[in-house]
């Protein structure tokens, strides 16, 4: 087995509304296992668009995408959902927690869907993750009653619950103050060191980007560096 976890082959993406416009232009790159990669660039350069394609949530593109050696391009929607569930953990800019559920339930949900463990085991695992992220005392609160920083930590716990091989973040610190941003970064770094999970983070924060293993700079739909 190769140690490449994600690979793209000449990915192009167009927006058609209001006029046809090329957002991504011939993207070729790969991420190794345990690598911490950041993507930076100006607003509208296509970095978020790329991230959505890489996370299999956007299927409207040209080219080919491989995750864990498997081509995603031909998979049906339900197959992609399974890949997202099992192999990818995604942290959004806004936390995107389900407000109707408690913190603990939010974290447990993807694992319950995967169904690899008994609910009791999943709950234990979710609690230990929350404890690691230092929000275990909020576990039984409603998800909408936390502060922004706490919510983002819950979202990270949710992304980690299934032990994905790849964790992606779309400006996960975009809505946080510098203190909370720092905490989130620290958590990410520890993860890479500990579990050999790969990280791909889109960010505006140049300081943060410099501390990652590799920083990709995008401009006008191309990878510049």
């Amino acid at each position, binding site marked *: 087995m190769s140690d490449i976890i994600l690979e793209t082959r000449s990915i192009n993406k167009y927006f058609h509304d209001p006029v046809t416009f090329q957002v991504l232009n011939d993207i070729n790159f790969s991420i190794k296992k345990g690598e911490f990669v950041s993507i930076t660039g100006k607003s509208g350069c296509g970095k*978020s*668009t790329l991230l*959505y394609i890489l*996370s299999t*949530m*956007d*299927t409207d593109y040209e080219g080919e995408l491989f995750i864990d050696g498997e081509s995603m391009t031909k998979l049906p*929607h*339900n197959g992609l*959902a*399974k*890949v*997202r*569930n*099992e192999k990818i953990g*995604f942290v*959004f*800019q*806004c936390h*995107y*927690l*389900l407000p*109707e*559920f408690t913190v603990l339930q939010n974290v447990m*949900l*993807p694992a319950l*869907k*995967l169904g690899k463990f008994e609910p009791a085991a999943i709950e234990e695992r979710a609690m230990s993750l929350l404890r690691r992220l230092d929000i275990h005392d909020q576990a039984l609160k409603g998800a909408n009653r936390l502060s922004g920083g706490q919510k983002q930590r819950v979202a990270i716990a*949710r992304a980690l619950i*299934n032990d994905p091989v790849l964790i992606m973040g779309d400006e996960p610190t975009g809505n946080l103050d510098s203190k909370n941003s720092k905490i989130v970064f620290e958590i990410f770094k520890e993860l890479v060191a500990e579990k050999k999970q790969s990280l791909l983070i889109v960010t505006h924060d140049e300081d943060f980007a410099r501390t990652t293993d590799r920083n990709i700079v995008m401009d006008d739909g191309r990878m510049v560096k």
Partner: protein
Amino acid sequence: MARLKQSVIEAAGVTFGIAMFITLVSFMTGLNKMLDSLILNRTPHIRLFNAINPNADQPVNRTAEFSKSLNIVQSIKPSDSRTEIYNSSAIIQSLKNDSRVIAVAPKVASQVFYNIGVIDLNGLVNGIDVSQELKYFSFADYIIKGDAYDLNRISNSVILGKGVADKMMARVGDVIHVTSAKGDQMSLKVVGVFQLGLATIDDVQSYASLETTQKLLGKPKSYFTDIQVKLNNINDAPKIAKEYSNRYRTDAEDVQTANAQFESGTKVRNIITYAVSVTLLIVAGFGIYNILNMMIYEKMDAIAILKATGFSSSDVKNIFINLSMIIGVIGGFMGLLIGMLLTMLIDQIPFNTAALPAITTYPINYDIKYYLIGVIFALITTYIAGYFPAKKAARIDPVVIIRGK
């Protein structure tokens, strides 16, 4: 993931639809049944009798000379044929052995004049087999004064129609005088008063025992003018009537022919009932559809999150269909319950009509059939109303929503 308040409103929509359906159908079919019974209770399914008709076999047809020609005879008068049914006891015996027949009741009808002082009032005395009439033709429901069994216990007794009794100012216990069509006079003791609710009957007819009527006519005990038959299945009446007419060489009239206009009235009322009920259910269905649709727009984010974290389209679809089915089941059963309570309430409202002495409250039909229809319809409508929004929710691409933020 549903907001409780919304689901409650939605379930209330189903509940309302089903409750109204149950109430309306129970009430309307109850009324229909009552109206039907108004006529049908006292009408035999098949009536055997001899109609007074001109003889089809006129002498001219029998002469050899004219046997091959077209003979037209004008103004034929009926011959003096008897209205009596020939060989009646054998016919009754054979009818009783027929497995399709529930009951056979012979009857003697006699034209009479009720004598009120100097005035003679035209009327009809029906000689009936009292116990059979009580058992199979709900005679007792229409007796408003007195006891029908007194017809058997007291000789020369009569139960008068309400109109007749009023005109004669006769009360139970009085003795009235009648004159038969042949001119024989007879005194009869009034033992009761009946009211069918149909003035044409109540103002003219009265009931006596078979023996009394036969005596009035001066006829033997085997003399019957009608044989009334009650069948297991009323819908077989036209077919069986034809069969009897051929077999017993009498005229036979089935209830459908006798009350043709009534049949069509019932049909039309049933159509109206179902049309209104189905409309109610469809309206409730659209309500569910709208609310679920709105809910999906509100829950776009949640759908996107679920999909982003690995839930498939079919998972999302199932969530929405399950949601609407839960609403359908809860709403449907609540509807049945409320519908039943409402009908029970209506059942308590007094409804006094001169036409129907046996009925004191509004009639309700508690047929389990309508409850089953209600539940099945509730489930089907909520499924369909949930299916399309659910399909829409399943189709949503998570990135479209997330990018839109």
